[in-house]
């Protein structure tokens, strides 16, 4: 399994995403924002961080990077793509996922260990979890509030496209406590919390996040 991990100027959790891929026995392939091809990878992770400083809006500049045009094309053809935190924001800006991420309702950056309910275990990235399993992973973001109009929310809810939901008090003002969603096809998943920081209880709260990368392994092997 070869998994591309994109590095934009200002990406931060790219090393962590690469490590998570390795922990799942995959090969992590670094992709550069200026690349015009995906080096034949089986899947792509768009990692967390502050691409281009996130100065205008999170992900607003990164979405236009050359490598993203390749990702958009591949995703539309069914390649598994995971956007974590800033990666989720980029995928939303790139219209691979609906909605937008806005400033946390309490206006502070929030770093905390967060319980999530896995509500959809049929996406390319979540097959290893039981449906409605609860997992504990870090959440760390300043603009993690998920917003979408009523129609979009209904569409997401009605079709099981809410993949992760916050358990307990809402950390950032997300509509419907949404922590992560998928596209209609189930190959593109974006979430604000950081599964790649929960792959080893030594450096994370748990190893609950590893399941996402192992799920991908199954998806890729099956494909």
């Amino acid at each position, binding site marked *: 399994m070869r998994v591309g991990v994109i590095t934009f100027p200002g990406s931060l959790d790219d090393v962590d995403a690469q490590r998570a891929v390795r922990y799942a026995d995959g090969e992590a392939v670094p992709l550069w924002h200026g690349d015009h091809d995906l080096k034949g990878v089986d899947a792509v992770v768009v990692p967390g961080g502050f691409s281009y400083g996130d100065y205008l809006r999170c992900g607003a500049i990164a979405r236009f990077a050359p490598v993203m045009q390749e990702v958009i094309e591949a995703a539309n053809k069914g390649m598994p793509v995971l956007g974590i935190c800033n990666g989720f924001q980029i995928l939303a800006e790139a219209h691979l996922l609906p909605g937008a991420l806005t400033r946390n309702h309490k206006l502070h950056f929030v770093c905390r260990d967060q319980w999530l309910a896995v509500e959809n275990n049929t996406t390319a990235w979540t097959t290893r979890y039981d449906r409605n399993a609860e997992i504990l992973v870090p959440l760390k973001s300043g603009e993690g509030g998920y*917003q979408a*109009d009523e129609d979009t929310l209904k569409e997401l809810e009605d079709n099981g496209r809410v993949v992760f939901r916050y358990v307990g008090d809402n950390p950032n003002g997300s509509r419907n406590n949404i922590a992560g969603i998928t596209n209609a096809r189930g190959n593109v998943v974006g979430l604000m919390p950081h599964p790649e920081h929960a792959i080893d209880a030594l450096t994370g709260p748990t190893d609950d996040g590893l399941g996402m990368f192992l799920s991908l392994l199954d998806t890729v092997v099956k494909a």
Partner: protein
Amino acid sequence: MARVVVDVMPKPEILDPQGQAVANALPRLGFDGVTAVRQGKHFELEVADDVDDATLAKIAETFLANPVIEDWTVRRVEA
């Protein structure tokens, strides 16, 4: 050279925690009479004379604002 101002505001139906925080703080600081505050972004651009209004609108719509959550206005101002 022209000077262009683009204002980007959260859509009315979208929560605006920043504006709300300002509105809540004002009475505490002794300023009464401000009943609502919304906070957005203000851009000042210097643009070449041959950049037309359609291009400016496109810049605002595709880049400076995210139409999912934000409204925008563009106006040319005297330099």
